[in-house]
């Protein structure tokens, strides 16, 4: 089965989001990434494969090791698309919370 891989599907999973955070500041091997999770190594490999297929991660061969690093360009594409929409709702909901706190019974 050939699943369509895309950035939104990629970031929908909490483990994959954690992997992206992990490699945001440093390039790491699959082993080093896996050591940060309780998840089985093959499961982490699967996540890395998905993130690579949708071009959020890039692989780089250094000697015998393959290092993963973040593809900043595509990460920005997601944020640009969704973030203003998310912020609008966040702003509204922050306001809702502030306003409704005035109706809380006094303790």
């Amino acid at each position: 089965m050939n699943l369509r891989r895309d950035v939104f599907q990629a970031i929908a999973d909490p483990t994959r989001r954690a992997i992206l955070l992990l490699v945001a500041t440093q390039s790491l091997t699959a082993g080093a990434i896996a050591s940060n999770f309780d998840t089985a190594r093959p499961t982490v490999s699967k996540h890395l494969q998905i993130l690579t297929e949708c071009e959020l991660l890039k692989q780089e061969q250094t000697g015998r090791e393959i290092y993963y690093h973040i593809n900043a360009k595509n990460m920005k594409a997601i944020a640009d698309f969704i973030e203003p929409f998310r912020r609008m709702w966040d702003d509204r909901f922050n306001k809702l919370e502030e306003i409704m706190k005035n109706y809380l019974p006094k303790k």
Partner: protein
Amino acid sequence: MELKTKIHAEDGRHDIVITREFDLPLELLFRAFTEPELIEQWMGNKVLQFEAKKYGAWHFENRDDKGNVVFDADGVIHEFIPNRKITRTFEMRHTPFGVQLEVSDFYQLTEDKSQVKLHVIYETVEQRDEVLKLPFKQGINWAHNRLEEFMSKFK
């Protein structure tokens, strides 16, 4: 900083899910969604009509400083279960974005925490993506100004 409002939008789908937790009891969260004078305060719109019942109609409007209508949306409520669920249609008048279906579920998490989940379904993938690309910045600014006005009354 933790993001309190979460958006789940998968590529190639014609829906989105917005979730948010509040430091409010469920009853207060639900009131904010269903009492016109409260809706006006946090949405930043005028509420011209809001019939909180099955087949009730709703109509929101927003005008700029010169009185021009800049946001005009309406729809019909199909399910109204207090403190639990609202299902309604949503359409921005005079726009090509079509009719959206909005399913809002309300959850009590603890005595003083609650959550809302908005599932918004668009007619097509293209319509969803167009709506997501609308310039929201303007909306945020209106909302922000309203908040300052409103909160200054409590000083």
